[in-house]
């Protein structure tokens, strides 16, 4: 029992700290919630440290198979904490700027992180479900939290209803799988499928519901509808959050369900994912072209990226999964930078969420224009930026597994996609600025954002480490 506790230490500590911070928050009068903010950040760092320190050599299963700690979970958790740390840093800027700062934001954020971590290391369907709910509920609340704005509450409502619907589907799927295999624990399920003679198409029936649940979280077409509205409606700080760390969690969940749980059905879910992938890339890239609101545009680009993410899973090999992992991580880094940039450009009671707000950025601030350029070209998948390698990785594995034509389709969509990223670069560099108002943001914000952007470039020049990490994570 105590061994189990050791394994799950990061989660436990995070939980404890979250409760602590809740109390701190309750008693703090500071309108800027500085204390809450810093304690939160420290909590994250502590968790991060714990994760780093307790990175397992081989998979450890705890709590009667409810919990697993392996390479993938460890790395994803680490990135979740790290990314959330930066996200909170950006968010704090934003909230201060917009005078909508609330202590609960951070507390809920922490609980969301907890949920993600649980998902990352969930090894039974039940833990997956609970982790998912913990995450989602916190997110619903965070979206709705900025009570001044109509769109926020609308977004929250849509998110909530659709989320509930999706988790309902997921549950139905779980119930079917449970009913067919008689197990909730992933390993048992795999074993049951391989050994017992279970009607395959019924398993697929159940699996489809599971996939829908996962696809919804990731925002894959046709289960993507919530994404644009939520991204646009939610306060940028929350959008920033939603579009980064939870994606890792959703990826982890997909991996757990499809790879750890239902790998015997690989041929079936490959073809299902193929449909979703093509749809997502198509819908995402094509609709994004027509957008004028950058948050919404990035939402659609997310959908497109998810399509690409699936390609790695479709490959159905260790390397392919590593490719997807690499993809989702680099995507999280990129979109963190992109939304960070929106926050950076925003000012008091002004959200820089229209594309035109980027006009002439190169004159206003060459440096950040350059950072944004890196991010955009990276998202478009142009070398030497990180985004290229993520696309390259999944495509390579896809081709290696023999899906050449699918790869061709994918690259065609990536060209369509390139257009709207270029459009932002065009706005920044080729157009005249409408206002030359200088960018007012705190020093650490500027610094972190710069690092974020340069990271995209540096990792693009030397992607080996991250690639190796992902490979070992899945393989180990």
């Amino acid at each position, binding site marked *: 029992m105590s061994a189990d506790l050791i394994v799950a230490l990061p989660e436990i500590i995070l939980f404890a700290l979250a409760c602590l911070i809740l109390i701190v928050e309750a008693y703090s009068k500071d309108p800027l919630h500085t204390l809450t903010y810093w304690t939160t950040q420290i909590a994250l760092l502590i968790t991060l440290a714990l994760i780093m320190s307790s990175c397992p050599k081989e998979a450890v299963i705890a709590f009667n198979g409810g919990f697993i700690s392996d390479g993938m979970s460890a790395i994803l958790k680490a990135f979740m904490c790290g990314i959330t740390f930066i996200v909170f840093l950006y968010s704090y800027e934003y909230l201060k700027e917009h005078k909508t700062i609330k202590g609960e934001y951070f507390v*809920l954020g922490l609980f969301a992180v907890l949920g993600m971590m649980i998902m990352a290391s969930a090894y039974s369907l039940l833990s997956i479900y609970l982790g998912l709910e913990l995450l989602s509920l*916190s997110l619903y*609340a965070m979206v709705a939290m900025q009570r001044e704005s109509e769109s926020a509450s609308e977004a929250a409502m849509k998110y909530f209803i659709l989320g509930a619907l999706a988790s309902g589907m997921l549950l139905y799927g779980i119930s079917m799988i449970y009913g067919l295999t008689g197990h909730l624990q992933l390993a048992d399920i795999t074993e049951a499928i391989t050994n017992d003679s279970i009607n395959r198409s019924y398993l697929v029936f159940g699996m489809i519901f599971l996939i829908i649940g996962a696809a919804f979280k990731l925002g894959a077409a046709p289960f993507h509808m919530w994404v644009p509205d939520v991204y646009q409606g939610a306060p940028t700080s929350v959008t920033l959050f939603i579009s980064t760390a939870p994606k890792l969690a959703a990826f982890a969940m997909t991996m757990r369900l499809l790879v750890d749980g239902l790998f015997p059905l690989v041929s079936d879910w490959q073809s299902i994912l193929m449909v979703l992938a093509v749809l997502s890339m198509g819908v995402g890239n094509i609709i994004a072209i027509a957008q004028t609101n950058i948050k919404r545009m990035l939402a659609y680009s997310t959908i497109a990226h998810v399509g690409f993410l699936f390609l790695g899973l479709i490959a159905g090999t260790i390397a392919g999964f590593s490719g997807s992992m690499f993809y989702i991580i680099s995507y999280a880094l990129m979109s963190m930078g992109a939304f960070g940039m929106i926050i950076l450009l925003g000012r008091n009671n002004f959200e820089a969420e229209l594309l035109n707000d980027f006009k002439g950025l190169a004159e206003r601030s060459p440096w950040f224009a350059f950072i944004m350029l890196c991010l955009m070209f990276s998202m478009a998948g142009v070398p030497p930026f990180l985004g290229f390698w993520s696309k390259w990785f999944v495509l390579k594995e896809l081709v290696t597994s023999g899906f050449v034509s699918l790869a061709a389709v994918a690259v065609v969509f990536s060209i369509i996609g390139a257009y709207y990223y270029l459009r932002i670069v065009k706005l920044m560099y080729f157009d005249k600025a409408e206002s030359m108002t200088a960018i007012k943001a705190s020093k650490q914000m500027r610094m972190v954002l710069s690092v974020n952007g340069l990271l995209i470039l540096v990792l693009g020049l030397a992607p080996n480490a991250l690639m190796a990490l992902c490979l070992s994570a899945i393989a180990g």
Partner: protein
Amino acid sequence: MIEQIVFYIFAGLLVFSASMVVVMRNPIHAALFLILSFFASSAIWILLQAEFLAITLVLVYVGAVMVLFLFVVMMLDINQVIVKEGFTKHVPFGVGVAALMVTAMGLVVGSDYFLSDRYIATEQLDPNYSNARELGIAIYTEYLYQFEIAGAILLVAIIAAITLGMSKLKINKSINPNKQVYVKKQDRLRIIKMQSEKKESEA
């Protein structure tokens, strides 16, 4: 035999009330039908030897959740909302899709596969079998971890509900002494210079 009859009665009731929930225009009626469907399903659960959960369902849902619903309904005095009729012309289409879905699912779940001897319920449990104890043991040993998570979820729910629910906005008239202390003259009082008036003739 009797079981079957009972089952079908409640099943019918359940389906009926459920569809009423969907059809009802007045949310209060809908809520009440929902309660009815909860009752019906709890009955069925008892047939399925899940007494504890059946009770819980009634207690938790009917007792708490539905009350919450009704409370909200009242609070928002919905009447102004339901002036227009609930459904629109899309209904037949929607129903068609629903039917399609029923068949799509029914074909699978209704198949004889689930009659196979894997799915034979033990008829008679021994008298001193306690469903609650079974669950209790499972939850507090095997599912400790998940139990904790559930706790976290509830906590989050509380936090969220509170933050969202309580409105600092208009009601709150409290003042901030800090601000009052730090106020300076020029914040409140502005002295402007202006030329004394001249007549056009002189200009």
